[in-house]
C-alpha cells in the first residue's frame, strides 16, 4: 500500500456520468433536500441518550448514572428526558435512532477519533478531506455547504466554495464591504472577488448578525438559509463538551447539559424550517461512545459503540435501529464498552444517497473507498 494522501479534488465529479445511476424524476426529488450534521465532540454516550431499559448489568455498573425517569420509546429503549424534541417527533415518525454504532475506530483518542469521524477513513490524519465534502463533490453539488463555525470543518472539506457562518462580535458596515469590493475590481483575484460576491449577496439578517456565542441565533439563521430553495443543502454544526470523565450524572448531570444543547438546536431547526423539515435529515456524529462502567469520579471513560440521533421528515419511521450486541461482559468490546454492530459510515452514506439523489453504491466507492457499507436507505429513510 502506498501512503500518499488521496486528492479527492481531482476527478471526483467526472465519474458521475459513468455511474449509470439516474435518479427518478418526481416532484419529491425536485424539492431540495437538506442534510444537517451535528458533530458531538468528546464522545457522546449512547447509553445516556438512548438508555436500554431494564438491563440489570447496566444498573449495577452505573449505580450513580442511572436515569430515574426516561421518556418512553419502546419496550427496549427509553430516551433521555432532555431530548424532548426527539420524543415529540418520534410520535410523528420524524425521529429515530441507530444504536450500538460507531465509526470503525477503537483507539479511544479524541484527536484521532474526531479526525476519523470527519474523514471517514481508517488511519488518523491520512486523509485531508471530509466524507461530506467528498460526497457533495461526487454528487456535483458545489457551493451548497454551510458550516456553522469559523474554520471550515474537516468534514466539509474536499468540495470548493462552501460558505461559513459564524458572525464576529460586531457587524461590518455594508459600505465598507462595498468599498473593498470596488478596490478588488481591477485585481485578477477571482477567489477573493467571488467570496466578496457571496458576502454581498447574503440576506440582511446574516449581514447584521453578531455574537456567535448564541447558538440559538446561529441555528435560527441556518434554518432560514436551508429553507430557501436556492440556499445551502448541507449544514454542519459543532458541539463539544461530551467528554464527561467526572460528575456525568443522570437526568441532570454534565452529559445531560450537552444533550440539552442538541435538543435546542433541533428544536429551533424544526420550528423554523417549517415545510422544509419534511425534506430534511438531521444526524449526529461522534468519535466514540463511553465505557459501561462508571469511574471513580462518577463519570465514564472513552469507549467504542455509541448512538446516532436522527430527526427529520425524510426518516422512514420512528424506530431504534440496532443489532443489539448485549451488555454482558463477553458481549462488550474488550470487556468494557458497548460494541458497535453497525458501521456508522453506512448510515451516513445512505443519508447522503437520499439527500443528494445519488446511488449509494456509487457514493460508497467515491467517498469511502468501496468499504463494505450496506445500503440502509430502505430501512431508515423515505425513498
Amino acid at each position, binding site marked *: *500500500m*502506498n*501512503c*500518499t*494522501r488521496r486528492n479527492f479534488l481531482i476527478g471526483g465529479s467526472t465519474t458521475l456520468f459513468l455511474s449509470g445511476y439516474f435518479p427518478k424524476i418526481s416532484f419529491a426529488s425536485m424539492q431540495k433536500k437538506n442534510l444537517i450534521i451535528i458533530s458531538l465532540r468528546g464522545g457522546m454516550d449512547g447509553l445516556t441518550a438512548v438508555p436500554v431499559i431494564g438491563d440489570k448489568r447496566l444498573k449495577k455498573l452505573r449505580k*450513580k448514572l442511572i436515569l430515574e425517569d426516561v421518556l418512553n420509546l419502546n419496550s427496549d429503549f427509553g430516551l433521555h428526558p432532555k431530548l424532548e424534541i426527539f420524543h415529540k417527533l418520534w410520535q410523528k415518525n420524524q425521529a429515530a435512532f441507530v444504536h450500538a454504532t460507531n465509526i470503525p475506530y477503537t483507539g479511544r*483518542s479524541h*484527536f*484521532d477519533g474526531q*479526525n476519523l469521524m470527519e474523514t471517514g477513513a481508517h*488511519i*488518523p*490524519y*491520512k486523509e485531508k478531506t471530509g466524507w461530506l465534502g467528498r460526497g457533495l463533490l461526487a454528487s456535483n453539488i458545489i457551493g451548497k455547504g454551510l458550516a456553522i463555525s*469559523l*474554520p*471550515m470543518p*474537516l468534514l466539509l472539506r474536499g468540495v470548493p466554495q*462552501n*460558505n*461559513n*457562518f*459564524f*458572525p*464576529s*462580535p*460586531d*457587524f*461590518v*458596515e455594508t459600505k*465598507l*464591504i462595498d*468599498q*473593498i469590493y470596488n*478596490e*478588488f475590481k481591477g*485585481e485578477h*483575484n477571482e*477567489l*477573493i472577488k467571488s*467570496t*466578496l460576491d*457571496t*458576502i454581498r449577496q*447574503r440576506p440582511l439578517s446574516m449581514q447584521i448578525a453578531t455574537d456567535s456565542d448564541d447558538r440559538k441565533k446561529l441555528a435560527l439563521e441556518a434554518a432560514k438559509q436551508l429553507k430557501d430553495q436556492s440556499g445551502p443543502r448541507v449544514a454542519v454544526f459543532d458541539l463539544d463538551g461530551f467528554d464527561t*470523565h*467526572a*460528575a456525568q*450524572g443522570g437526568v*441532570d*448531570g*454534565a452529559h445531560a*447539559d450537552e444533550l440539552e444543547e442538541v435538543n435546542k438546536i433541533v428544536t429551533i431547526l424544526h420550528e423554523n424550517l417549517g415545510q422544509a423539515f419534511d425534506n430534511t435529515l438531521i444526524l449526529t456524529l461522534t468519535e466514540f461512545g463511553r465505557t459501561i462502567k462508571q*469511574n*471513580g*469520579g*462518577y*463519570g465514564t471513560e472513552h469507549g467504542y459503540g455509541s448512538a446516532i440521533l436522527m430527526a427529520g421528515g425524510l426518516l422512514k419511521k420512528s424506530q431504534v435501529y440496532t443489532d443489539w450486541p448485549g451488555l454482558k461482559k463477553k458481549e462488550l468490546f474488550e470487556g468494557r464498552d458497548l460494541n458497535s454492530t453497525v458501521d456508522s459510515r453506512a448510515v451516513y452514506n445512505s443519508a447522503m444517497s437520499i439527500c443528494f439523489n445519488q446511488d449509494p453504491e456509487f457514493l460508497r466507492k467515491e467517498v469511502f473507498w468501496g468499504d463494505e457499507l450496506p445500503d440502509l436507505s430502505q430501512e431508515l429513510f423515505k425513498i
Partner: protein
Amino acid sequence: MSLNFYRRVAFGLSPNEKPDKDPLNWAINQLDTIPDLLWPGTIPTEKDLRKKYGEWVYGDREVLRKKFKNDKHAYRKAKDELRIKTGERYFELNEHAIRHFQTKYSKQPVFERFWLFWGNHFAISEKDFLAEFSTGPYQREIIRPNMVKTFEEMVQSVTTSWCMIHHLDNSESFGPNSKKGMEWGETINENHARELLELHTVSPNAGYTQEDVIQLAYIMTGWAHKWDRKNLETGDIWFDQEMHQKGDKIVLGVKYKNDAKRELAKVIHDLATHPICIKFVSTKLCRHFITDEPTDEMIKPVIEAWNKSNGNLIEIHKAVITQAYKYNENTHKFHPPEIWLMQLSRMFDLNIPLSFEKMNYTFKSKPNNRQRQLSWILREIGHSPYRAKQPNGWSDLEVDWVSPELLLRRFWFASVELPMLVKSGNRSHDFILTCLKNNFDDHENMASLIENFRFGISDYDLGQKYGVICNLPGVLKT
C-alpha cells in the same frame, strides 16, 4: 525595489524605521544569530510549565474528579479554581504576548518570520493541554535555538521533545516484541512515525509504504515520557529499553541494525538529508515567502544552498530570502491572519501586546479582559497560532484563508477593534499617511481613499479609515 519586500520577508516597517538602501542585504544580515527574546515580562522555562501542566492534570484527574463525583456544580467550581491556581488560563496568553512582542520590536524581523515558519512546519496541534502550557515554550526552546544549526539537528530536537512526543503519542508506542510490549500485550502507535515521514521530512513524494511506517515506528519505540504517580504523563523524555522493539529494521530500503537508542539518530540523519526531503521543505519555504505555487526555477537555488551547506539553516534561509527578493516584483503572496495582524501592529505601532506590567499574573483570579485581548483577537480572526486543528499545522495557501467569514472577520477587526488599539499620540490623519508612505509604493492612492475622513479622530472615524486600508488587495497580499 518595492516597499512590499519588507512585508514579504518581515512585518513591514514601524514608524521609526526607514527603508534600507540595500533591502536584500538588510534582510540577509538578520539570519546569522538568534535574537534575544525582548519581552520584559516573565518567560517561564519549558520545564517549569510542564510542572504546571502536571499540577493541573493531577489536580483534576486524581483529586477533583474523585472528590466531587456527585456534584457537577461543585466540581466545576473547584476546577475553575484549579485553573486559576495553575495558570491554565494564563500561560497561553503570556506566550502570545512573548511572540507578538518579538515580531513587533525585534531588530531581526526576518529571523522572526522564519521562527514562525518552522514552528508551523513542526506544528503542535490542539491536543490535551499543550496549547495552554507547552506549545509556547516548545517554540522558544526547541525550535528557536536550532535555527542556526542544521535541519537534521532541528529534526532530532523536535522528535525527542516532550511536546512532540506527547502530541503524537509516542509514549504509547510499544515494540510488540519488547519486554513491556510482551508483558502488557501492547503494540506500536504509528502516529509519530507517520508524521515524521509525511509532514516533517520526506513527505509522501518519497513513496514510502505502510511497512516503512511500521518499521520507523519500531525504531522510535522507547522514546517516551517517564511516568510516575505524581507527574503522570508530564515526566521527562527518556529512552525506555524495555519498550523498544528488538531486531533490525528497514526504512525506505535502508537497513538499521538493532542498536537501541542509537537507531533513531541514524534514521533521522537519512531522512533529513534525503533529496526528496530537501525538495519538499525547500518548496514549503518558497511557498511561504514567494508564492503559493513556487516553480522549480524558484526552488532550485534553495536546494543548491541546502546541498552545498549540508543542510545549514542559516545558508538555506539566506537562499530563500535571495529568491524572495528576486521574485518580489512579479509574484504575490496572501498573508494568513496572524501575520497580517503582526504587520499591522508593527506598521501602525498598535497597542498590542499589552505592557508587561499589566500582563503580570497573581494566580488568584481569572486573567482580565485586557490580558486576554490579544489571544481573543487571534481567535476571532481565525488564527490562534498554537491551536492548529491537525498536525500539519496552519495552511499556507490563500484558498484556505479566503472564506466569507474569515474575510469578514478581518474587516471587523480593522474597522471595529483596531481603532481602540491606536495609541493616543497616533490618532491624527498625518500619522496614518506617514505609515502608509513608509510601507506602500502606492501610498498616495491609498491616502485618497480615506481623504474624506481626514478630520476625524474618533474611534468610528479611525474605523472608517483602517477598515479600508488594512483590507486592500495590496495589504492582504504582498
